[in-house]
C-alpha cells in the first residue's frame, strides 16, 4: 500500500473515532408540526447494528435529503420509516417511529395501509409488467379508492399529470409500462406511488439510474410534489440534495451527524465530518 493510502486510512480511522466521541447530532433535528417523528431509532441486521440512536422529525410538506457515504445507513433508515425492512431476514428495529403521532411499528397496524400512506420510489424504476394504465390503477383498486371505471380513469390521469408524464403517454395508456424510457418509467413509478394518495413519499436514490435530463425532470417533479406531499429522499448526489431539499441530514457509520437547512449544510456545515463529506474529502 502506498504511503498516501496508509495516511488516508489513518485519517479515516481517526475520523471514525471522532464520531464515536460525538454522541449528539448537530443541528435542528426537530420541528414544530412534524409529519413523522423518529426517536432513538436503532436498526440491527442480526448482530450488526446499522443505525445508532437516530432521532429526527420530518416536517409536513418538507423535502428532506439524507446523504452520506455508502454504508452509512441512510437507506436502511429510510426503509425503516415504512417498514420495508420487515421483509429483510434478521432485521430488527428499535425505538419510536410515528406517523401523525401513531406508532408505525404497533402490532395491529396494517402494513399495506401504512405503505399506501408512506409510499416509496426505488433506485431502479420497477414498473409492473402490465400496461401503463394498470400500473397506476392497481394500487387504487386494491385499496378500494375507486368504485367505478370513471373514478379510476380520473385517478390514472391525475396521477400521470402530477408525475409530469400524462402528455407523453396519454395516447398509449394500454401499452406495457416496461416499454417506456428509464426516466419515463421512474415517473410512472412516482405516478403509481401518488395514485394511492400517500402523505409521505420516500425516495431511495430515485435518479441514480437516470441520465441528467431525466434526472432534472424528476427533480422538477419533486419540487412540485412537495406542495402536496412530504418527501424524504436518499441520494448519492450531493448536488441533487442541494438542489431539491429544504433540509439535509448527514449520516455517517449509522449515526445521524448533522441536520440543518440545506443552504447552511452546503455553505457552512457545523460538523467537520459533514464538511469533509460534502467537500469530497472522503466517501
Amino acid at each position: 500500500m502506498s504511503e498516501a493510502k496508509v495516511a488516508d486510512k489513518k485519517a479515516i480511522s481517526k475520523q471514525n473515532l471522532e464520531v464515536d466521541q460525538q454522541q449528539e447530532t448537530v443541528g435542528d433535528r426537530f420541528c414544530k408540526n412534524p409529519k413523522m417523528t423518529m426517536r432513538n431509532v436503532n436498526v440491527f441486521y442480526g448482530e450488526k447494528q446499522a443505525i445508532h440512536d437516530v432521532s429526527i422529525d420530518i416536517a409536513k410538506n418538507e423535502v428532506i435529503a439524507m446523504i452520506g457515504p455508502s454504508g452509512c445507513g441512510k437507506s436502511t433508515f429510510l426503509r425503516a420509516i415504512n417498514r420495508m425492512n420487515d421483509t429483510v431476514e434478521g432485521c430488527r428495529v428499535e425505538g419510536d417511529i410515528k406517523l401523525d403521532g401513531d406508532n408505525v411499528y404497533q402490532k395491529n397496524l396494517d402494513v399495506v395501509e401504512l405503505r399506501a400512506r408512506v409510499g416509496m420510489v426505488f433506485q431502479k424504476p420497477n414498473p409492473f409488467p402490465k400496461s401503463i394504465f394498470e400500473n397506476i390503477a392497481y394500487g387504487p383498486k386494491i385499496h378500494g379508492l375507486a368504485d367505478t371505471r370513471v373514478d379510476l380513469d380520473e385517478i390514472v390521469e391525475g396521477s400521470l399529470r402530477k408525475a409530469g408524464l400524462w402528455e407523453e403517454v396519454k395516447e398509449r395508456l394500454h401499452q406495457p409500462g416496461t416499454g417506456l424510457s428509464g426516466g419515463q418509467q421512474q415517473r410512472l413509478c412516482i405516478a403509481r406511488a401518488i395514485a394511492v394518495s400517500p402523505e409521505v413519499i420516500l425516495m431511495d436514490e430515485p435518479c441514480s439510474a437516470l441520465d441528467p435530463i431525466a434526472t432534472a425532470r424528476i427533480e422538477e417533479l419533486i419540487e412540485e410534489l412537495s406542495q402536496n406531499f412530504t418527501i424524504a429522499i436518499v441520494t448519492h448526489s450531493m448536488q441533487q440534495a442541494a438542489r431539491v431539499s429544504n433540509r439535509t441530514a448527514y449520516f455517517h457509520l449509522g449515526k445521524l451527524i448533522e441536520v440543518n437547512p440545506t443552504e447552511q449544510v452546503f455553505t457552512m456545515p457545523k460538523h467537520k465530518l459533514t464538511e469533509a463529506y460534502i467537500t469530497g474529502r472522503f466517501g
Partner: protein
Amino acid sequence: MPKMSFENHIMKQFDEELEEIRTQLMEMGGKVEQQLKNAIKAVIKADSSLAEDVIREERLVDEMEVDIDEACILIIARRQPAASDLRFIMMVTKAVNDLERIGDEAKKIANHAIILSEQDSLSQGYKEVRHLGSSVSTMLANALDAFARFDVEAAMSTLEEDAQIDLDYKTALRELVTYMMEDPRSISRAINILWVVRSLERIGDHAKNLCEQIVYVVKGKDIRHQK
C-alpha cells in the same frame, strides 16, 4: 469549526488547484503591496520614473486578476465546490477585485506623483501623504498576512485600523484646505495631494474588505455593513 485547509480531497488535483489559486492570490497581493509602496515613494521623493514603473506594471495586476478569476470559474464549473471550498472560491473572486482596485488606486497615485514632480518643490502635503501612506501600507500588509494564515483574529484587528485611517484622511483634508486658504498658489498642488490621500483612503477600504472576506471564508459569517 473545521480548520481551513486545501488538503485531503479524494481528487488530489482539486487540492492542487485550490493551492495554486491561493498562491496566485498571494502573488497578486504581494505585487499590489509593492505597487502601493512605490507609488507613495514616488510622491514623497518626487520620483517620476518610479511613478512610471508603477503605471506600467498596473497591467500585470490586471492580468493576474483575469487569470485568477478564470481559475475560479473553472473550479466552479468542474468541481462544484461546497462549504469551505465554496466560501474560499467566492472570497477569492471578491478579493481579486479588491486587489485590482488597490492596483488602480496605486496607479492614480503614481499619476499624481508625476504631476507633483513637475510642480515647484514646495513640501506642503508630504507629511500627510507619508503618514497616511504608512498606515495604509501597514494595514494592507496586515490584511495580506492575515489572509496567508487564514487568521480571523488578525483580520478582525486589522479591519479596525480602517477607522483610524478614515480619521487621518479627514485630518489631512482639513490641513490641505488650510494650505489652500493660506496661499492660493498652493491650490493646484494641494488638489493633487488631495487626490493622493483620497486614493489612500480608498485603499484602506479595500483592505478592510479583504479582512471581512477572511472572516467569511473561515467562520462563514458575513460581517459586511455592520456597525
